[in-house]
C-alpha cells in the first residue's frame, strides 16, 4: 500500500497472531486466529483509526504493533526496519512506540508519584535530570505541574488519562498507539481528550494508531480509517470518504448501529438490520467471515473469500457486492 515508492513510517505486513487455546475439560488444543493477515501503513504526523467490535482482534493488533507481542507470521517495520531484528537495532526500533491504555488508574504504579511515572520513559533512555521535562509535559497536556508530587489515586479519571498521555509523549516517540484510551472516560471528558490529542499532534507531529469500538470517536480524530471483523481488515479508506460512503456491509451496519444524539433521526429509523452475534474466532465462517450476518450474502460469499480490492480513490473493501447495495447509510436529513 506504500505510495510513491517512499518508505512509510510504519508498515505492517501480513501480520498474523494465533493463540493456542485449550477449553476446560477438552483434550485438544484449538487455534484462535486473533489477527489473521493484517497489512497497514502509517505516515508521519498521521492518525490511523481502527474500529471493530469485541473479538475482532484490534487489541491484539495494538500489542503486536508496539512489540508487546511477537507475531506468529508477518512483519512490523518502522522506517523500513523490522522491530524484531535481533539485538540493539530491533530494541531501538521498539522504543519508538508508546501506548496509552483504556484504564488510566491501572496503567500507573499506585505507589509512585505521577511525576515519577511520567518521567520513566525518559529515564529508560538514560536521561538523568527529568524534572524540567516532566513539568513541560504536564503543562502541555493541560495539567497543573504541581500534580507531579501526587499519587495517581489523588487524580480524577480525566487527569489520570492526561498524565498517561504525558508519559507516552515525554520521550518523543514516533508513534503512540491508543487502545480504547477514551472508552472509560465520561462524555464531557472524552471530547476534551480527543481535542487534546489533535492539538498535540499538530504541535509535536506524532503519529497515532487510534483503536476504538466507538466509530464516532474514531471519525473525530482519524485521517484514515480501517474496519476490522474477526481478525481481518474488511475496509480501509480516507476518513472523509468513509464517513460519506462506507462500502462494506459490516461498516454500514456499524454506522447504522451507532446512535446519533438526534431524536427525530433515531425515531425515523426502523429496527436494525444486522442479526445475530459475532461468530467465534476459533471457528470462523467459510468464505467471507461476515456472510452469516450479512444482508447481501449469496452462495458465492460462503464459498469464496473476497480479497481486499480498490473500489476507487484508494478506498479498499473486501466484499463481492460492495458497490451493489452497500453505502446505504440511513438517511441523515435534519442531522447536523
Amino acid at each position, binding site marked *: 500500500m506504500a505510495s510513491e515508492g517512499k518508505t512509510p513510517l510504519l508498515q505492517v505486513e501480513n501480520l498474523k497472531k494465533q493463540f493456542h487455546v485449550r477449553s476446560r475439560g477438552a483434550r485438544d488444543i484449538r487455534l484462535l486466529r486473533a489477527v489473521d493477515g493484517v497489512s497497514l501503513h502509517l505516515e508521519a504526523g498521521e*492518525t490511523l483509526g481502527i474500529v471493530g*467490535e*469485541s473479538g475482532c482482534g484490534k487489541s491484539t493488533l495494538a500489542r503486536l504493533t508496539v512489540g508487546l507481542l511477537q507475531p506468529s507470521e508477518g512483519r512490523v517495520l518502522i522506517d523500513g526496519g523490522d522491530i524484531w531484528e535481533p539485538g540493539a537495532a530491533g530494541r531501538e526500533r521498539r522504543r519508538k512506540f508508546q501506548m496509552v491504555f483504556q484504564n488510566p488508574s491501572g496503567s500507573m504504579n499506585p505507589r509512585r508519584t505521577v511525576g515519577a511515572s511520567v518521567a520513566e520513559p525518559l529515564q529508560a533512555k538514560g536521561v538523568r535530570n527529568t524534572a524540567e521535562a516532566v513539568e513541560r509535559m504536564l503543562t502541555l497536556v*493541560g*495539567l*497543573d505541574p504541581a500534580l507531579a508530587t501526587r499519587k495517581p489515586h489523588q487524580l*480524577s*479519571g*480525566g*487527569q489520570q488519562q*492526561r498524565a498517561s498521555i504525558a508519559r507516552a509523549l515525554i520521550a518523543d516517540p514516533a508513534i503512540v498507539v491508543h487502545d480504547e484510551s477514551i472508552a472509560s472516560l*465520561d*462524555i*464531557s*471528558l*472524552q*471530547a*476534551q481528550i*480527543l*481535542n*487534546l490529542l*489533535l*492539538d498535540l499532534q499538530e504541535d509535536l507531529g506524532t503519529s497515532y494508531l487510534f483503536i476504538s*469500538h466507538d*466509530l*464516532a*470517536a474514531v*471519525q*473525530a*480524530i*482519524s*485521517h484514515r480509517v480501517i474496519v476490522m471483523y474477526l481478525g481481518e481488515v474488511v475496509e480501509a479508506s480516507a*476518513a*472523509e470518504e468513509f*464517513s*460519506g460512503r462506507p462500502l462494506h456491509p459490516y461498516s454500514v451496519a*456499524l*454506522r*447504522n*448501529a*451507532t*446512535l*446519533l*444524539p*438526534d*431524536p*427525530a*433521526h*433515531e*425515531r425515523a429509523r426502523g*429496527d*436494525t438490520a*444486522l*442479526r445475530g*452475534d*459475532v461468530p467465534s474466532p476459533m471457528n470462523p465462517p467459510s468464505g467471507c467471515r461476515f456472510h452469516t450476518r450479512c444482508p447481501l450474502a449469496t452462495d458465492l460469499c460462503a464459498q469464496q473469500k473476497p480479497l481486499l480490492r480498490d473500489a476507487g480513490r484508494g478506498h479498499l473493501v473486501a466484499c463481492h457486492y460492495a458497490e451493489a447495495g452497500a453505502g446505504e*447509510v440511513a438517511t*441523515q436529513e435534519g*442531522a*447536523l
Partner: protein
Amino acid sequence: MSTPPVLRVRDLTTRFHTSHGTVTAVNGVSFDVARGETLGLVGESGSGKSVTAMSVLRLVAKPGRIVGGRVELNGTDLLTLNEEEMRQRRGSECGMVFQNPMTALNPAFSVGWQMREALTAHERGNGTAGRIHAALADVGMPDPERQAASFPHQMSGGMRQRVVIAMGMINEPQLLIADEPTTALDVTIQAQVLDLMKNLTRDHGTALLLITHNMGVVAKMCDRVAVMYAGEIVEEAPVDELFGNSRHPYTRGLLRSIPRADRPRQKTPTLPGSPPDMSRLPAGCRFRDRCVFADDRCENHPDLLAVGARHKARCWKTQNGETLDETALSQEVPHGV
C-alpha cells in the same frame, strides 16, 4: 395528566456516611413515569443516577441510606413498607435490568431454573415451563426449550442480556428499571437489545425508567428526559425539546460535546472542567465553576422551575427568560481541567 403515574418520586434524598464525611448522592430528586412512557435519567458518573434507581428499589447498600422523600409505586409509598412487603414488590410490580448480565445471572444454575425462581417467587401454579419458554421467545431467543437448559457461560453477552430482560419482564411488571442495560454490549448487539426493549415495553404498556450516559440511547428510546448533575436533576423536558431547545448550560454543553459518526475529522466543542467532588460541593449553583454564563446570581442555589410547557430547568438565567447564547459556548477553552 389524567391517569396517575405508575411511579411518582418526590424529594428523594440518599446519603452515604463515610470516613471522609457525608455525601448526599441524591438530593431532593422528584419525577414521574407514566404507563407506557420511557423516562431517561441521564448524567455522568457520580451524578447520582444509579443511586436514584437503587433508592427507588430500596437496594442502596450501606453506608448509603435513604433519608427522605417518597417513592410511590401505583400510589403506595415504598419507603413505608417493611422489608418483606418490599421484597414481594421487587420483580413482580417492578422489574430490574442491570448493566452487567454476567453478574446479574447465577453461573451455577441453568437459565430456565433462574427464570422459574423469578416467576415462582411471586406466584405458584402450573404452566411455568410454558411461560418461561414464551418469555424467552419474546426476547428473540431461537429455540427457547434448548436455551432454557443452558447455563449463562454458554451464551454470548447479547444473549445473556436478553435473558436478564426476559427475567425482568416475566411477571409483567408495570414498571421496569434498566440501569445502563446496553453499556457492556457491542454496538450492533446494543441496537438489537434496544429494539427489543422498545417493542416489549410498548406491547405491554410498561413504564420504563432508563438510566444511561449515552445520549444516542436517550434519543432512540425516551419520551422524556431528566438530566442529573452532582446529585440533582438540573433539567427535565420531553426528548425533542431537550435536544432541540435545552435550557440548562450543562445539558447544552454536554449535547455539543458528543462526537458524531456522520462527521469527518474535526474538533468537538467541549465542556471545560470535570464534575465537582461530591464531598466538597460548591455553594450556590453546582455547575457554576464550569459554566460560561455564570454571574452573581449563581452564588445562590437555584431551584428546578418551569421554563416552558413540561420543561423545567435549574438555572437562574433561563428561569428569567434569558437565552443561552451559542457563541459564548463556542469560545475556545485551552485544555481546561
